[in-house]
């Protein structure tokens, strides 16, 4: 059986440093710290769970949950991000689609945007890892509810532990969140209290409580962009009860985001 050797989550955006120089450096240092921890775990597969920003999907053809199955993926290059190709772990991704069953769609030709590429680009600047991109797209109505995201994480855990080769080392990296409102009048609001409470549940191992949340309450308290925390809930579902530590948190209204990152340990 394979093993989940580490789990991480981080916001998947960066913004202009002007006016928030100190905060931007704390965030960037935290993201690099997560990168260093991932690399130290030497994963055979890096599963990146995140959302797209309507660059690879259309509203009329919603794909709430999909897995990019190409052997080589070329990043979109939005925000000027590097377009160096990504090594896709086809055996892992196609196997997971088959194992997960209904509701998980195989995707070909995806060009990952910053939702994947900011976390991955910082964690793996030299493109040394074989990657399994999993999309939990919270931009559609209806988006996957937290209970569904949590269950998806459970299927991912079961797949790794029952199907994947012995001693395969898997790290899960979730991208998105925390609270933010995007393209709406509330843009620039950050709900620090909500962010803190959500992070406490994540690192405290109180993951069943996450599955009881609803997208309605997340949207109200953490914004339309806050729904991206469903990717974090997938991570929690894959590592139920695991505790962890907060690597960084900075509320940055100028970036319209509560910026956070954490680590979960399978041994705690």
């Amino acid at each position, binding site marked *: 059986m394979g093993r989940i050797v580490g789990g991480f989550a981080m916001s998947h955006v960066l913004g202009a*440093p002007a006016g928030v120089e100190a905060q931007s450096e704390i965030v960037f240092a935290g993201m*690099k710290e997560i990168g260093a921890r991932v690399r130290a775990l030497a994963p055979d597969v890096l599963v990146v769970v995140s959302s797209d920003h309507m660059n690879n999907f259309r509203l009329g053809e919603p794909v709430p949950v999909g897995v990019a199955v190409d052997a080589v993926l070329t990043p979109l290059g939005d925000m000027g991000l590097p377009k160096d190709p990504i090594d896709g772990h086809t055996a892992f991704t196609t196997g997971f689609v088959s194992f997960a069953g209904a509701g998980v769609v195989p995707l070909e030709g995806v060009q990952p945007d910053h939702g994947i590429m900011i976390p991955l680009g910082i964690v793996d600047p030299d493109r040394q890892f074989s990657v399994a991109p999993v999309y939990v797209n919270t931009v559609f109505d209806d988006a996957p509810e937290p209970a569904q995201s949590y269950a998806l994480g459970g299927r991912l855990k079961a797949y790794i532990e029952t199907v994947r080769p012995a001693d395969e080392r898997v790290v899960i990296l979730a991208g998105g969140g925390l609270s933010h409102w995007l*393209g709406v009048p509330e843009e620039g609001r950050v709900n620090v209290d909500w962010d803190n409470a959500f992070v406490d549940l994540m690192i405290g191992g109180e993951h069943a409580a996450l599955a009881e949340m609803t997208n309605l309450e997340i949207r109200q308290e953490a914004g339309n962009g806050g729904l991206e925390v469903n990717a974090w809930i997938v991570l929690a579902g894959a590592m139920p009860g695991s505790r962890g530590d907060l690597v960084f948190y900075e509320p940055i209204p100028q970036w319209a985001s509560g910026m956070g990152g954490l680590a979960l340990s399978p041994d705690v």
Partner: protein
Amino acid sequence: MADADTPSAVHNLIEHLVATPADRPLIRTDLDGLLQRFEVPEAHRAVMRDGQRDELARLGIHGNYVIKWLIWSGRPSMPFFPISHYFDRRH
């Protein structure tokens, strides 16, 4: 209130521009033609031309598409920055 078909017309327009980056300069060179081609209701073309985030949001346009439209139109809601400011220091 927005016409019932305003969001869908604008969504079709923006999804075309997502898929066809070469057409994005038309926003600056032939905006009227672009809005006509995708049948954006005339009552809302002024907002598409000059409106800010909140006015676009009030038309019912998806938040991600509001952001894309504002960026492509040269009036982003958040300032540009070079990603190299961070990415050149990843190691």
